[in-house]
C-alpha cells in the first residue's frame, strides 16, 4: 500500500507541471534526451537479465530465450 502511495505521488508530480509549447522543445529533440534506451544499451540490458536475478519488470528481456549458461 505504501508503495502504491509513492507511485501515485510520483504520477501527481509529473503531471502537475505547466505545458511546454512545441517551439520550446528544441533541446528535447536531441538523441540523449530520448527516454528510450539506444539499441546498444538494450544488448547490455539483456546480459544483465542473466547475471542478476533481480532483473525483469523493466522492459528488458524476460522470456523468449535461454542463455542460462
Amino acid at each position, binding site marked *: 500500500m505504501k508503495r502504491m502511495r509513492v507511485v501515485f505521488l510520483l504520477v501527481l508530480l509529473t503531471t502537475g507541471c505547466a505545458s511546454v509549447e512545441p517551439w520550446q522543445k528544441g533541446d*528535447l529533440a536531441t538523441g540523449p534526451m530520448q527516454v528510450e534506451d539506444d539499441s546498444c544499451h538494450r544488448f547490455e540490458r539483456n546480459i544483465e537479465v542473466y547475471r542478476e536475478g533481480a532483473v525483469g519488470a523493466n522492459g528488458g528481456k524476460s522470456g523468449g530465450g535461454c542463455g542460462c549458461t
Partner: protein
Amino acid sequence: MAKSVPAVLLLALFAAPPASGIDVDFLLNYYDQDGENSPVTGGIGTEDLQVVAPVFVIDWAVSDDWNLSFDLGVDGITSASTDNMDTEVSSASRQDTRAYTTVTASRRWRENQTWRFGASLSNEYDYSSLGGNVGWSIDLDQRNTTLALGLRFFSDTIDLYDIDGVNQGDDDRQTVDLSLSLTRVLGPRTVGSVEIGYTGQSGFLSTPFHEVILAPTPDFPEGEHVTERLPDSRTRMGVGLTLNHTFSKRIVQRLSYRYYDDDWGIAAHTVEAETHFRLPARNEVWIYPILRFHTQSGSDYFGLPGTFTGDEPFITADRDLSELTSEKIGLGLRVAFRHKQTGFLSKLRSFESRIASYSRDDGLDALSVSLAFGWRF
C-alpha cells in the same frame, strides 16, 4: 475506413515507395565473462563464456499511419562451463547458437494514439520460444505527456538435459509481462518518466543442468551432486524512474533508478547515470561515460556449495540468485548524421558504440562491446 493488416502488407509490397523510406540497422555485440562459481558445476567451476551477437533490424514506414519492423539475430555462444555438463569433458569449450526473429506492426490512430502488435520466435538446441505482444500509447497535452500500456507473452519449451547430459524429455515455461509507463515533459530542458512493470512466470523455471553440491555424508564424503530445484511460479514487480536534463547545448545528464521485488525473496536497487558531452562537429556527435550500480538481496533458495542437506524443497547454487552487488563502468559514442554524406556514407543515418566493464562482488568479471550502424534508404 481502416485497412486490414493483410491489405496493408500487400500495399507495402506493391505500392509506390513509402513516404519516409526504410531504416536498416546492423548491430554487432560481443560479450566475454569469467568467474569461478558456475552453477553448471555446483557453484565451484569456471564461468568462462563468450557471446557474439549480430542483429539486423528493418523498420519500414509503409504509409503515413502504418509501420512495420522486422529483426533477425543470432547469438553465437561459446561456453567452457556447459561443456562440463556430461561426465567426460569433450573439448575446451562448447558451442551453442540461438537464432531469433521478431515482427512488429504499429498504427497511428486518431492523431494522438498508437497501437502496436507483434510476434517473436527463437530457437536453440535445447530451448525454443514463441511470443506475442500488444501495446497502446496516447499523447496528451500537446504531446507533453505520453501514457503507454504494454503486454507481452512468451511460451517456451525446454529440452531437459540433466546434470549428466542425458535428455529427460521436455517441459514448458510461460511468461507474461505487463507494463504501464508515463512520460512527461517537465520543462523546456527536462523530461521524466515513471514505469511500473509486472512479470508473472509459471512452469519449469529451473535450469535442468544446474548442479547443487549437498553437505558431506558418510556415503558422499565430498557431497552428493543433485539437480537444482526451483518453484514453478515467480512474480516480479519493478518501478523505474528516469530523468533526463539538458544543462547546456553541449551537456545532457541521464539518470535512472529502479526498485525491484519478487516472491523468491529478491529485492534490488539499481542506479544508472550517463553524462553526454556534445563534441564540436558538423554532425551531432555525443560521447559519454557510463556508470551503473546494482545491489540485491539473495533468493530464499540460494546456498553455497555444501550447505544444503537435500531435504529442502527448493535449492540452487546459481550466484545470479544470490545476494550481490555489481558495478558497470563504460564509455559510449553516438553520432546522428544531420548533413548529407557522400560515397559509401551517403545513406548512413547513425552510428552508436558502447564498451562497458562489469564486475560482481563474487568475482565474476565481464566485458561487453556493441556497435550499431543505421542506414536510411
